[in-house]
C-alpha cells in the first residue's frame, strides 16, 4: 500500500516536471517544458536570477565588457559567449548558441522579440528603470521559467533575512541620495529607481523628489542643492578617466561647501555598476554591504 502511494507520487512529480508550464510575462507569455539548460540573458539584471538558480548562462549581452558584471556574479559564471551589446545583441550569435530559453528586456528588445521567439522560448520582462519590488517578482517569474522556483524562493527568503539584518544596523534619521555622474551630467535616482527601493527596504530615507514619476532624473546644480541630501552616494561612470568633468566643476562652485553632504563630509563613492546596472538580488545585497561599510 505505502510503496504504491510513493510510486504514484513519484510518477506525478515526473509527469508534472515534463508537463508544459504556462508563464505570463510582459510579452505574449511562453510555454516551456522541463528545466532549460542553455539560457541566454540579454540584460544584466536577469543574470542574477539565473545564476542564483544554479545555472550559468551560455550567452550574455554584456556590452562586450565583462567588468560591468557584478563581481559577486562574475566569479560564479562559467565560460560564456558575449552576444554583444544590450541595445543590439547579435541574433546570429544567439541562434548559434542553440539556447532553450532567452530572457529579454521589454524596453530594449521589443523590436527583436518575434525574431528571438523563433530562436527559442523567450521570456520578455521589463528591466530598465524597474523598482526593487519588481526585481523580486521577476526573480520568481524567471524561477518558474527555469523550473527552479523552489530554489529561488528559498534564496529569496534568505535575501529577506539578510536585508533585515542590515536594516537593524543601518537605520538612521539622515537622508540619502544615490546619483550617477557621466559626461551628460548628474542623474539622480528617483523614488522608483532600484537603488532607492533598496535603501527604503533598509529603513533609510531618500532625498529624492517624492512626486517624480521617472526612475532617473537629470538635475542641474540648483536642483541638486534643493534636494540637499545628508549623504551623497555617487557612482561616477567616468572614474577611470579622472572623474566626470561637470562634477569637478561643481566642486569648485561657491555653494558646494554649503551642501549638507559636503559640510558633514558624507560624500561617498560607490560603483555605478553595482548600484545601477546590477538590478538583482545580489545587486541589492551589494548595495546593503556598501552602505554598511560607507555609512559609519
Amino acid at each position, binding site marked *: 500500500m505505502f510503496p504504491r502511494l510513493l510510486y504514484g507520487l513519484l510518477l506525478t512529480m515526473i509527469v508534472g516536471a515534463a508537463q508544459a508550464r504556462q508563464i505570463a510575462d510582459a510579452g505574449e507569455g511562453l510555454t516551456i517544458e522541463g528545466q532549460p539548460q542553455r539560457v541566454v540573458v540579454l540584460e544584466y539584471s536577469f543574470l542574477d536570477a539565473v545564476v542564483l538558480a544554479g545555472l550559468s548562462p551560455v550567452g550574455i549581452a554584456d556590452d562586450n565588457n565583462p567588468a560591468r558584471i557584478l563581481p559577486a556574479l562574475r566569479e560564479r559564471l562559467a565560460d560564456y559567449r558575449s552576444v554583444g551589446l544590450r541595445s543590439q545583441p547579435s541574433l546570429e550569435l544567439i541562434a548559434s548558441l542553440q539556447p532553450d530559453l532567452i530572457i529579454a528586456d521589454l524596453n530594449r528588445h521589443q523590436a527583436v522579440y518575434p525574431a528571438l521567439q523563433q530562436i527559442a522560448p523567450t521570456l520578455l520582462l521589463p528591466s530598465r528603470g524597474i523598482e526593487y519590488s519588481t526585481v523580486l517578482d521577476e526573480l520568481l517569474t524567471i524561477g518558474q521559467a527555469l523550473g527552479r522556483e523552489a530554489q529561488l524562493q528559498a534564496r529569496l527568503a534568505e535575501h529577506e533575512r539578510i536585508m533585515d539584518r542590515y536594516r537593524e544596523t543601518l537605520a538612521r534619521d539622515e537622508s540619502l541620495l544615490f546619483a550617477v555622474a557621466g*559626461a551628460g551630467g548628474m542623474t539622480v535616482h528617483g523614488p522608483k529607481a532600484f537603488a532607492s527601493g533598496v535603501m527604503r527596504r533598509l529603513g533609510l530615507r531618500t532625498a529624492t523628489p517624492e512626486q517624480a514619476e521617472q526612475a532617473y532624473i537629470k538635475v542641474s546644480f540648483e536642483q541638486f542643492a*534643493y534636494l540637499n541630501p545628508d549623504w551623497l552616494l555617487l557612482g561616477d561612470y567616468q572614474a577611470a578617466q579622472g572623474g566626470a568633468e561637470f562634477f569637478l566643476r561643481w566642486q569648485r562652485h*561657491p555653494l558646494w561647501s554649503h551642501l549638507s553632504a559636503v559640510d558633514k563630509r558624507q560624500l561617498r563613492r560607490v560603483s555605478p555598476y553595482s548600484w545601477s546596472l546590477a538590478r538583482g538580488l545580489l545587486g541589492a545585497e551589494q548595495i546593503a554591504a556598501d552602505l554598511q561599510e560607507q555609512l559609519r
Partner: protein
Amino acid sequence: MKLASAIKAGQPGQFGWFGSTGLAVLLLVVGIPAALLGGSSFQLGLAELNEALFGDARSLAAQLILTVRLPRVLVAALVGAALAVAGALMQGMTRNPLASPGLFGINAGAACLLVLVQSGLLTGLTGLAGLSELPLLLVTGSGAALAGALVLLLGGGWCRPIHPVRLVLAGVAVSALLTALTRTLLIVDEQAQQVLDWLAGSVAETGWQQWHQLWPGVLLGLLAALLLAQPLNLLALGDEASAGLGQSPQRLRLQVALVVILLAASAVAVAGPVAFVGLLVPHLCRGLAGGDHRRLLPLAALFGAALMVWADLISRLLVFPSETPVGIVTALIGAPGFLWLTCRGRGGLV
C-alpha cells in the same frame, strides 16, 4: 535685376528697425528676470533678485541667483546672439537664405571629437593617455574649429577663392561624414550615449567659468561682424558690382567665414549644438527690418539673445524638476516658426 532685388532686400520691413529693436529689447527686459527667477524648487522672488543684484547677497536664494542663475542666463543670451549673428553672416556671405552656421560642420565636428574622446577611442588610436581628461570646452572648441577649417579648405579658402556653392556642398558632406562617425560611435559604445544631452544643446551646466571662456571670443566676433556689415551689403549687389566698388569678394568671404567659425565654435563649445537659432533669427529679423546688415546684425544679436533666454526658461519648466536640453526647445519653437516665416514669404531673400 540682381540690383533691384538687393535694393528691395535692403529696405526696412514692415515693423521698421526701431520698432523691431524695441520689441527685442522688451523681450529681453522681461525675459531676463523671468529666467533668473522662474522654474526653481527654491522660492525665488523679486526681493531675492534685488538682494542678489544690489544687496549683500547673503541668503541662499540670493547666492543661487548670483552663482547659478545669472551666469546661466548671460551665457544663454550670449550664445543666442553669437549663433544668430553667425547665421546672418553665413546667409549674407553665401547669399543663400538656408545657410546656417551648422553648414560649416561646426556642430558635427564638436560632437564628433567629443564622442571620440569620451569613448576613449582617440586615446586608443593615438596612445596619449591624457586625452580623455581634457576639459570639455577645449575638446568641443577644437572639434568645431577643425571641422570649420576643413570645410573652408574644401570650399576654397587659402589657395583658391571661396565659392559659395562649393562651400555649402563641402559643409554638407563634412557634416554628414562627421555625424555618421558620431552615430557609429554612439551605437558601439553605450557609455558614450551620456553625451546625448550635450548633443541636443544645453546651458544647464554653465557657470561663471563658462561665461569667462565665452565672452572674449563672442565679443571679438560680434565687433568684427559689425565691421563686415557694410562690405556684406555691397556683396549683396553681386560679385562684379562689389569688386567694381573696390572690394575683393574673395577676401571678404574668407574674413566672414573666419568670424562665423569664431562665433559658432565659441557658442557650440559652451552650449552644444543649439538648433535653429542661427537659421530662424536672421530670417525673422530680415523680415522685420530689411536686409541692411548694419541694422540686421545688431537686431539679430538682440533677438537671438531673447530667444535663447526664453527657451532656457521654458526648458526648465517643460519637465520640471528635470532639465530639458535647451536645444530641444529652440527646435520646438524654431521648426514651426521657420515654416510660418517661409509660408508668409517675408524671409527677405526668399
